[in-house]
């Protein structure tokens, strides 16, 4: 379990990172290393050079900007979880983060690293896709961004070019008064890779009618998916309307079969967890819990 030899470089600027990446196709970025180092140890990855961006100035931190919360790529997952702005403005991310790894891996693992890794069952990409976040990245031509939905292509595959480096994730903040969130996940053990996960955010008006709904599922297909339940906007949710809406969008999803779970199981769990997340989000927003259950 020892990595193959590599050269270690700690550049001083993002521009230098892009230069180094462009100069050597065997170069890889390392930040928290919580996924990359195991892959190096198992020799599933053998880059010639590791470019350490963890201490690059300006790449870490959380700030509010034009109706969005911008999280720097190298912000530790543990810091995001403890952050007051994330808790108040991005409750869905705050609810999902405890499911990301364990305390020691969250202390080191970064928000941008989880996005770059693009694991289909990872929680941060799921929240990014569900909320319609933008991925901001540096290219040799300058900074650019892309919606999360276009960014993730498949398992561990993104549309970012080899010479680019993620600099931040811009999560939109809903401006409504009454917002609620729900997050559910099933895995073999707590904090193992999710077989299926579901995230929902709902805003309601004074009468309990939905103003805006976002629903997403992870672990089902080859990337996190946002499910369109926008026809529920303007209605009050109940068990039947939630079940019908989620079944209509999730029961036919293309799902992966593996050692852990069959495609059929994943689809069924996606429907169940999607409905649960949506019901919880609705109740959390101030609507009546569809099952009448106390929270």
């Amino acid at each position, binding site marked *: 379990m020892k990595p193959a030899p590599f050269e270690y470089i700690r550049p001083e600027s993002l521009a230098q990172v892009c230069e180094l990446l462009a100069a050597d196709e065997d170069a890889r970025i390392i930040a928290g290393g919580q996924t990359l180092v195991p892959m190096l140890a198992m020799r599933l990855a053998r880059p010639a050079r590791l470019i350490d961006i963890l201490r690059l100035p300006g790449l870490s931190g959380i700030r509010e900007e034009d109706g969005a919360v911008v999280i720097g790529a190298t912000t530790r997952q543990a810091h995001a979880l403890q952050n007051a702005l994330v808790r108040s403005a991005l409750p869905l991310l705050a609810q999902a983060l405890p499911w990301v790894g364990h305390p*020691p891996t969250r202390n080191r693992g970064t928000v941008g690293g989880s996005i770059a890794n693009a694991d289909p069952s990872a929680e941060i990409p799921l929240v990014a896709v569900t909320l319609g976040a933008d991925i901001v990245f540096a290219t040799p031509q300058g900074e650019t961004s892309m919606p999360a939905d276009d960014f993730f292509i498949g398992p561990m595959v993104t549309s970012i070019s080899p010479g680019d480096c993620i600099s931040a994730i811009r999560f939109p903040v809903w401006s409504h008064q009454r917002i609620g969130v729900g997050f559910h996940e099933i895995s073999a053990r707590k904090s193992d890779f999710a077989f299926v996960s579901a995230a929902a955010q709902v805003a309601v008006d004074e009468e309990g009618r939905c103003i805006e709904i976002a629903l997403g599922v992870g672990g089902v297909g080859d990337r996190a998916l946002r499910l369109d339940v926008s026809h529920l906007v303007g209605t009050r949710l109940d068990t039947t309307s939630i079940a019908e809406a989620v079944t209509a969008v999730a029961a036919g999803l293309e799902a992966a079969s593996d050692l852990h779970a069959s495609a059929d199981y994943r689809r069924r769990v996606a429907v169940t967890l999607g409905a649960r997340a949506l019901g919880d989000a609705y109740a959390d927003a101030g609507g009546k819990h569809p099952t009448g259950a106390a929270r």
Partner: protein
Amino acid sequence: MKVELKVNGQTRIADVEPRQTLLDTLRDDLHLTGAHAGCEHGVCGACTVLLDGDAVRSCLIFAVQADGYDITTIEGLAPAPGELSVIQDAFCETHGMQCGYCTPGMVLSAHTLLQRTLTPSREDIVDAISGNICRCTGYGQIVEAVEMAADRLRKSNALRAAHEVSK
């Protein structure tokens, strides 16, 4: 590459290959063998150390990345040679170990939890040690050890950080 590491309050210098993990550097170069090599790919938690007070896996950090941090290993927890920290003592008393392989990691994970709060719930304790695998005890006595240590620290006369006192 030469790296300067601040370990348990002392500055230590090691000459390492970039691919050498902090774990191997601590064990092989600095002869601090309290951090254990278990899975060596970030699953078991036997190699847990503290970086600036936060528990991390030393097998998932290269020594060349670890300069500038305050590194604490299990050797740095005891107040004096031959003594045990309150948490270590509680692990002994409740039999919170059998083979002892996971123990340094468990103690350090518990240490970070009890730095934050001295009134942890059972869920807090379980969450804090969720990244540390034990194949002997079944975890029951480990949780008991952390509960006992929290209780003793609450009742102790030792000076505490202001945020703990104000609770």
